[in-house]
């Protein structure tokens, strides 16, 4: 049986809040903080005690999890005036589950280790908000192996975990996964728009092609949900965040001297989708962009 811990959660948004709720349900004493007072108040309804800052969490928690927006936010969580390292005595474990760069994971790992704390970089690589709520997310974890062994029982209360080795590996897997998701989604959107132009409704195209050579989880999950339920799954990130993720993938490729085309191309396309459809519009709405850009698809879609 997993022993109960004092656990802190930084970032109580779409992913962080259900994680905190699951930890409460598992019997842990959970505190949380967020830049949004509304998010903190909402999490309090789930039994999450509010804290003012990551530094405040560091004074009372053995394990702290983060699920924040980007590298800048994560840097602030660790190195900021009210960050973890502002509290001299923090010697517990810190697990970052955000979509952030491999470089910052390595930086934070070095800084925390030097202060006697432990750091694991981790990421949720599938299933979306629904899987997080059900504590069934596939999660990758890397870094300090002793810390992995120590905190594994807690992390496995959030989903199915795979340990992938050296610090930064989990972030690399996550960025490659999100690169695939972003590029395949946009390419699928383009293909479905072309099908519409050629007189094939999306429902038909999906029914006939989802089990073929061009099939993908994107096609099933996002566009399958759209055709079957009339809406995309809840909690999908917007074009702005997908552009950020693709930028991180491009930077990872550049950092390891790997020639790639689609991360940068995809990033530029998602910026364009965001300008046309709104930066926080769910990223599979790329379909609407391709419809708008192609009058035949637009007319056929409107008629349907």
């Amino acid at each position, binding site marked *: 049986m997993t022993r109960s811990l004092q656990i802190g959660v930084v970032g109580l948004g779409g992913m962080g809040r259900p994680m905190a709720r699951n930890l409460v349900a598992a019997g842990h004493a959970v505190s949380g903080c967020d830049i949004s007072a509304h998010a903190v108040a909402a999490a309090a309804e789930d039994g999450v005690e509010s804290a003012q800052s990551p530094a405040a969490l560091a004074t009372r928690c053995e394990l702290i999890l983060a699920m924040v927006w980007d590298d800048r936010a994560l840097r602030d969580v660790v190195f900021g005036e009210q960050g973890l390292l502002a509290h001299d005595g923090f010697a517990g474990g810190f697990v970052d589950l955000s979509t952030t760069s491999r470089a910052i994971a390595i930086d934070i790992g070095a800084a925390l280790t030097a202060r006697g704390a432990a750091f694991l970089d981790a990421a949720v*690589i*599938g*299933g*979306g908000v629904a899987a997080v709520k059900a504590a069934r997310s*596939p999660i*990758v974890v890397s870094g300090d192996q002793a810390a992995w062994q120590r905190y594994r029982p807690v992390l496995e209360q959030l989903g199915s975990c*795979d340990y*992938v080795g050296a610090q930064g*590996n989990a972030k*690399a*897997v996550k960025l*490659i*996964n999100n*690169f*695939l*998701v972003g*590029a*395949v989604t*946009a*390419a*699928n959107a*383009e*293909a479905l*728009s*072309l*099908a519409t*132009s*050629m*007189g*094939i409704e999306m429902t*038909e*195209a999906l029914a*006939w*092609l989802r*089990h*073929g*050579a*061009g099939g*993908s*989880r*994107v*096609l099933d999950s996002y566009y399958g949900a759209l055709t079957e339920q009339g809406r995309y799954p809840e909690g999908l990130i917007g074009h702005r965040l997908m552009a950020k993720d693709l930028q991180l*993938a491009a930077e*990872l*490729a550049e950092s*390891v*001297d*790997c*020639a*790639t*085309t*689609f*991360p940068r*191309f995809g990033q530029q*396309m998602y910026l364009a989708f965001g300008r046309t459809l709104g930066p926080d519009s769910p990223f599979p709405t790329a379909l609407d962009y391709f419809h708008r*850009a*192609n*009058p*035949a*698809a637009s007319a056929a879609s409107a008629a349907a």
Partner: protein
Amino acid sequence: MGLVGAGEPVDTLRHRFETAGLRVAMAGASDDKDASIVAMAVRCGGVVVTTFGTEAPLRAAFADRDAATARNDLVVLDVSPIAPATQRDLASSVRPSSVTLVGGRVLMRFRDGAPTPTLYIDDDATRVVPLRRVLASFGDDLVITGATGRAKALGLIDDLLAGVNAAVVNEAMALGRSAGLDAPTLVSLLQKGSGATSVMAHATVAPRDTAASSAALARVVSAAQQADHSVLFGSVAIGVLLRQSHLAVGLDAAPVNCDVRRDRQVAA
């Protein structure tokens, strides 16, 4: 029945037809195809299945009216990856002669992980009596798509989906290797995630040669142009796949076999 064409689709079709008890006469790519269609029809009771990489041989065959009408009950089921507009154009150009041209595509579907060649055809093919045994040979692996040209359109969409996915997966695997990740482990993890694709899952049983995928995408872009539709990701993927082909970093074996060291050596 006759079977005219070359490459992997021919082998798949021949196997299907012969398994169903049909006698198949073949004409390969090196033959004079515009003569072969007619010769085949005469020899084989008037039913020929054709599969060409481009529309040119098909157009040539039907442009020769004398040859095409040498037998007045010729039925051609063409499963080449041509554009729907081209098929409609060809079908109308051979009428009002007694030659019947109907369209289809053979696409791969995965059933319980096993690749299953599936014949997609337009409605009008089902109304051609001499074709019934040919269609029946596909059993449950026959999909009737609707109006003329829809099977060709679906084939092109499948080519677009699979081609771009292959290009993206290749880049993802190359990136993973360069980042020091173990390729089989990465494949296993990615297949659990939101980025899972059929291309990655089935690459070892359904190899897609990068140069062939690039050529398929070029046909898609051309067909899209006929439909006044721009294809951005497909166009970019043509170049990416060609580069991967040149550097042998492609799916010709499997994405997990991408050889990034060679990529780097060539680049250097």
